[in-house]
């Protein structure tokens, strides 16, 4: 008897099919891993099961009933519980208040009785938690337990956890899986959305792998290996197309990154002693699944984040970290991850283009409109930006905003280019244009660090590929010697050392 049967689920967002004819079955008493890269459609599928999205096609049968799930309230009533990555807890409330919120059962509240009720629920499920504790003061792991308790209090029989270990310390991760095992023993079904293979292999009974919205495998965990899962998940047959030969590797080191470590806001180590070099005329690609420290690395190199330890130097000169102005001094060009944070939308194209060189376009504090306009006109032509100098940047398309950023950065002949997700969300034409411009910079002798979640992009442009996993560089490949199987395993943590 299956607890959940999703059949032929298709969900389209515009032209993109996030789920394409997906079959997904969950049985009671199993922990089921839903594996896939970012954008494979895992979250979409689970949001459909939780009633947040309506599928365009397909049917969902829960416990033998195929009534449609119109909202999360429907899903909760049918026994679906969802613990998202972003907890929906009230930090100023106690554990008990959070668990009972909306399901108090009566108008008059008695804190002692509420605490007793929640303590009893927790004990019955093998939790240890203080029901009177203020949630905002609990660790992330404990807050997650409160979310699980909430779902259990609402009689959930299928518990979905979205990337539950992404924010947990190793000890909390262990504790979480202990709890999940107990739930499984009580015949609940647990679904964990993850891209961590070792976790899936160690802790689950079944695994379903999604790639580009389709199911590419669904089997008992015991009958598969992490190597097979990695291949299914990343699954690339393509080899890099022709590329300019590396001009750099024998040349001088331009960007020297030495032992960077930093913790994120929750205190989890985001980078662990990251060390690498980029030579003049070389593209180094950082390959990895999102959330393994790439954002922090880029933030440090662009002056937006102060590391706990480690140093960065450009052309042998140390860079003052944590100060974005150092970037302009050391000619570090930045193509930010989120292009809308790289421009000021309400300012004109011309103003955005000269923003980093304000000194050159002012005289005793006065802007020089003629010089600014001329500068803008030249860059608009050089970089084929489809806009007038006076247009507010927010009115431009994503591709053209990216060109504004490219024009501003690359026209200053940077010694180093930090390109973070340079083609995310832009169309094919703009993507090719960005790639061409980065290749030109390489030919000019710039040292380019390319951070991208798009593995094809990394393979296409990089002379050397570094693999980042869990805040550490775990492997290095030369562009002409990439072993895709091994690369996928390193990216997903299936192979620990590199």
């Amino acid at each position, binding site marked *: 008897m299956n607890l959940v049967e999703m059949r032929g689920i298709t969900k389209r967002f515009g032209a993109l099919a996030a789920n394409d004819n997906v079959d997904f079955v969950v049985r009671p008493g199993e922990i089921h891993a839903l594996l896939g890269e970012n954008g494979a459609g895992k979250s979409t599928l689970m949001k459909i099961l939780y009633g947040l999205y309506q599928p365009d096609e397909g049917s969902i049968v829960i416990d033998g009933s195929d009534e449609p799930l119109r909202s999360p309230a429907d899903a909760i009533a049918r026994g679906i519980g969802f613990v998202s990555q972003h907890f929906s807890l009230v930090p100023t409330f106690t554990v008990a208040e959070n668990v*009972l*919120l*909306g399901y108090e059962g009566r108008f008059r509240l008695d804190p002692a009785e509420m605490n007793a009720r929640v303590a009893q629920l927790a004990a019955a499920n093998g939790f240890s938690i203080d029901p009177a504790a203020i949630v905002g003061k609990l660790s992330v792991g404990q807050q997650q337990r409160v979310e699980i308790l909430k779902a259990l209090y609402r009689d959930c029989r299928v518990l979905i956890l979205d990337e539950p270990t992404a924010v947990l310390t190793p000890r909390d991760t262990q504790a979480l899986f202990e709890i999940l095992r107990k739930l499984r023993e009580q015949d609940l079904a647990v679904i964990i959305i993850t891209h961590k293979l070792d976790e899936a292999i160690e802790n689950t009974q079944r695994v379903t792998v999604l790639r580009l919205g389709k199911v590419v495998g669904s089997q008992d965990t015991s009958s598969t290996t992490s190597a097979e899962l990695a291949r299914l998940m990343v699954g690339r047959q393509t080899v890099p197309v022709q590329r300019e030969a590396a001009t750099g590797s024998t040349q001088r080191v331009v960007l020297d990154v030495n032992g960077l470590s930093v913790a994120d806001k929750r205190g989890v180590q985001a980078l662990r002693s990251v060390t690498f070099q980029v030579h003049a005329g070389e593209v180094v690609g950082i390959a990895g699944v999102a959330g393994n420290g790439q954002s922090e690395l880029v933030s440090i190199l662009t002056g937006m984040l102060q590391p706990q330890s480690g140093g960065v130097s450009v052309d042998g000169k140390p860079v003052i970290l944590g100060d974005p102005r150092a970037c302009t001094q050391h000619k570090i060009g930045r193509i930010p991850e989120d292009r809308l944070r790289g421009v000021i939308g309400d300012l004109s194209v011309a103003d955005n283009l000269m923003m980093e060189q304000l000194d050159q376009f002012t005289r005793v504090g006065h802007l020089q409109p003629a010089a600014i306009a001329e500068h803008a006109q030249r860059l608009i032509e050089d970089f084929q930006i489809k806009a007038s100098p006076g247009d507010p940047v927010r009115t431009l398309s994503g591709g053209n905003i990216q060109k504004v950023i490219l024009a501003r950065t690359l026209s200053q002949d940077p010694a180093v280019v930090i390109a973070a997700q340079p083609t995310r969300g832009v169309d094919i034409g703009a993507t090719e244009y960005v790639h061409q411009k980065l290749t030109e910079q390489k030919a000019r002798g710039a040292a380019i660090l390319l951070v991208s979640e798009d593995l094809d992009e990394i393979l296409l442009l990089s002379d050397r590929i570094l693999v980042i996993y869990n805040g550490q560089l775990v492997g290095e490949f030369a562009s002409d010697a990439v072993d895709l199987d091994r690369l996928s395993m390193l990216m997903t943590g299936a192979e620990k050392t590199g």
Partner: protein
Amino acid sequence: MEFIFTLLGATLRISTPILYGALGEMVVERAGILNLGIEGTMLLSAFGGFVAAQLSGSIYLGLATAIAIGILLSLLMGFLSITLGLNQHVCGLGITLLASGLALFLFRIIYGGESIPPALEESFPQLRLFSGTILEPVFSQYVFTYAAFLFVPLLAWLLYRTSFGLRLRSVGENPEAADTAGISVFRTRYVALIIGGALMGIGGAFLSLAQLGAFTHGIINGRGWVAIAIVIFGNWKPWRVLAGALLFGGLQALQLRLQAEGVQLPYEILLMLPYVLTIVAIAITGRNASYPAALLKPYRREG
């Protein structure tokens, strides 16, 4: 000794309208809405209650009218800030300007340009307890004052000991969490505004139907703004809001007394005293203020 009791009596009286305003504002802010319409709401309630009482001859109808006006203006605040999701500062100030203008305009229409403010023939009487004892000056108060003190434990109970209060606070702290728990954020915020508006209305009515028994344009005179400050001072907790209202009322009573005693200080300084000390008190306590996390944020579901 008598001096102290008289001062205490004046403190309670002066605190009353501010306490009503502050308790109303506290309830609304706890649900995530800053109602800067409070000043105008109290003024138009005071005016409307007065007109209704005068025309009908019933002070109770006057009180009901004041409450109704408080609720109506709060519903307008709700429509603008909850349903339309507009900036709460702008909506609130707009309502204060609208209500103040309306009060002035309607006053002109009804009473023309009279220089002497109209007064009620019959206003709410004082309820004297402990007559003939030394406590008499403390407990010669209007019913409104006694009721205001009853509202403090009542609201504390409502906020902390009922499911409604839990939901109201959750909506002001994390509306997403409330929404996923099946609580209607919009409805809860509207209910909070209605409760708050009613309390503000009573606060206005106290001045025109009881304490003064008359209406003037300066009748509220910034008490709404002071109430907002008192809410911050009180850290959004009923008992501490009460303490704040009493502190302000006490300072006001003291400065009036000092003026009457003919203290050798320019009276402007004495007038300033309660406000200056309130600012100092808030500067000290406001550092640890724990604002409702969702205050000022219109709620919209994602996606």
